[in-house]
């Protein structure tokens, strides 16, 4: 029987240069693997591969040099350690994330929780071409949100609370956008300069900034043969449900309009930025 490479690729089996050898990509969410999963990956790499694993550029793990005849044994062995095969090809790929506010002092959102939710909702969904989500916790952008088809960046919108403020000026020092000035112990905040990084709120020693956590969403990022920085349509989305509705709208737009093998950016270019922006605004305003 002829080998069905398309089905294997769909299930994360990457065909190697070496005949009948595959590099198996495993399913990873938000860059986290448990110790049990890692131990199982190590065991499988020793037993069925060449004793090593490769870390991909998008937070997945591949086990190279798996022989075609061992595909099923490897799947079963990995399942014992809670490891599933990943995906390749024209579908929603590994959802990447930085450690986010659960771990990182700079984080503005729980990136892993968002990545998990996106993974549950979209992972491996069939589309005209590959589709990548990335979730980064803050403006430091360790996860490079804008290189993804849909990038999500944690953000904090702030409001000064005069009654709690001692006029120390630490926030003005922490702000990288010159959005805060102190005059006569009073804060002058220019919201038009704010990029929602939350550094004023995080540095304040008297809790004199009220924070609203939210998301900055970018669309159409690419970092391969063509390079494009994803664009933002709505400056700040504070509701997680809205975030997911916007992701739904973006993925539907891609599913309905993209030509086979066409990345999201080029679909948006071809159909029209204004048409796409309207879809996103409708999703945001809940007027489908």
């Amino acid at each position, binding site marked *: 029987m002829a080998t069905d490479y398309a089905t294997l690729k769909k299930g994360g089996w990457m065909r190697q240069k070496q005949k009948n050898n595959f590099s198996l990509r495993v399913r990873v969410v938000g860059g986290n693997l448990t110790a049990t999963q890692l131990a199982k990956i190590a065991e499988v790499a020793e037993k069925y591969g060449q004793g090593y694993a490769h870390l991909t550029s998008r937070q997945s793990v591949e086990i190279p040099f798996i022989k075609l005849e061992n595909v099923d044994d490897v799947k079963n062995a990995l399942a014992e350690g809670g490891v599933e095969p990943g995906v390749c090809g024209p579908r929603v790929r590994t959802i990447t994330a930085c450690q986010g506010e659960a771990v990182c002092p700079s984080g503005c959102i729980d990136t892993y929780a968002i990545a998990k939710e996106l993974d549950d909702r979209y992972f491996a969904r069939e589309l005209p071409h590959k589709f990548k989500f990335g979730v980064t916790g803050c403006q430091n952008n360790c996860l490079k949100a804008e290189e993804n088809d849909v990038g999500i960046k944690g953000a904090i919108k702030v409001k000064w609370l005069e009654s709690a403020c*001692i006029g*120390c000026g*630490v926030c003005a*020092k922490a702000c990288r956008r010159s959005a805060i000035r102190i005059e006569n112990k009073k804060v002058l905040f220019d919201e038009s300069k704010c990029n929602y990084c939350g550094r004023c709120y995080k*540095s304040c*020693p008297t809790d004199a900034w009220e924070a609203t956590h939210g998301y900055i969403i970018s669309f159409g990022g690419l970092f391969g043969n063509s390079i494009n920085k994803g664009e933002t349509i709505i400056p700040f989305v504070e509701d997680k449900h809205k975030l997911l509705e916007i992701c739904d709208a973006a993925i539907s737009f891609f599913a309905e309009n993209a030509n086979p093998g066409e990345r999201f950016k080029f679909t948006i270019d071809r159909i029209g930025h204004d048409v796409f922006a309207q879809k996103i605004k409708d999703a945001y305003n809940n007027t489908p």
Partner: protein
Amino acid sequence: MAEQEFKIDDTVDVTDVKCPTTFVKAKVALEELDEGQILAVRLNDGEPVQNVPRSLKEEGHEILKLNDNQDGTFTLIVKKVGD
């Protein structure tokens, strides 16, 4: 001097160390004080002044004031809370 608004019980200079030792040195100085006593911490501009006030607040202490010494250093006035 604005420090005169408060009765300073002790002073620590952390301008000779880098983060996170700045915070540690201030924390150790606070441990020597009794609840309600006031510490003045001399800090460098940049990272120390952006991070140490918040870190001490997160330890439960009360930040009363930050004075700009106009020489690239700041003096943070902290009231010790808890034993």
